[in-house]
């Protein structure tokens, strides 16, 4: 039962993704052509709120609902990992018109083509896991 809140949060997230059109293939095409402000407004505002929010939470040693401190992990710097990984992700994002969250949102919305995208994404993750030691990080 403890997990119900995550199901509800996810449902809320899915509705936001759909209603904002951030999960629409058309909006992603528009974004990568710089032809509308819409997607930049969404991501930009989320970050513009997120930066002071996280700063404030760190400064005040914010606690979660159970009273445990909220931990913000730093990511170790690396150029190849984030650059190569990011470029590969970006190629897939533009080609499929969806990042991982919206892939699932689109399946829920009845676009069956995204089932193939999801299965292929799982295979991509699997192959990354297998090849991990051989890739520059």
């Amino acid at each position, binding site marked *: 039962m403890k997990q119900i809140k995550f199901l509800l949060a996810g449902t809320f997230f899915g509705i936001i993704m759909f209603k904002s059109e951030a999960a629409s293939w*058309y909006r992603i095409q528009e974004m990568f052509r710089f032809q509308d402000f819409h997607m930049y407004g969404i991501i930009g505002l989320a970050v513009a709120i*997120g930066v002071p929010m996280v700063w404030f939470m760190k400064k005040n040693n914010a606690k979660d609902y159970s009273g445990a401190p909220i931990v913000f*992990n730093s990511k170790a710097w690396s150029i190849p990992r*984030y650059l190569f990984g990011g470029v590969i992700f970006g190629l*897939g994002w533009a080609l499929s018109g969806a990042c*991982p*969250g919206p892939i699932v949102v689109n399946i829920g919305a009845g676009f069956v083509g995204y089932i193939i*995208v999801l299965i*292929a994404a799982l295979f991509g993750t699997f192959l990354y896991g297998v090849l991990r030691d051989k890739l520059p990080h």
Partner: protein
Amino acid sequence: MDLILQPWPWYVSGALIAFVMWLLLYFGKSFGFSNNLRTLCAMCGADKFAPFFQFNWKTQSWNLFFLVGAGLGGYIATNFLTTPDYVVAISEATIEDLGALGFAAPTSYAPASQFGMEALSSWQNILILALGGFMVGFGARYAGGCTSGHAISGISNLQPASLLAVVGFFIGGLAMTHLIFPLIY
């Protein structure tokens, strides 16, 4: 109610996404959707093939509930929270560009020729879907996060690594859109 049925403007959506990030932090977790891909692989036995999948996936099951919720949200939104004549109102310039590549102007949320039932009758199209998904899954794990983990959570936490990942997302996305799309469509 009419306001909910109409597409939500960017300033409502952006603020709500920040709220979801706060909600997950308050629940003692963090906002990062593509972690689920790793969890699902581990759940299906990938731990026998690579140490990357050797962890107790049950500790990540909360995120799978979040994932199922996201699908449910897509179902609810499309069936109960839109008007019957709903079309994504992208800019004229995009409609023109997509038209030049052979895509009809939007008639719904995503092109049915690519993602509807009919999309599955063309092997070329299935190949495109599979290749796109493969790169999303491979790239997200290689970069250690996707749009939620890097562009939203990571940049909010002022992580240079996340900024670099997002720069990578755009290099890849722009190359696909402007250089590769004209070759495949």
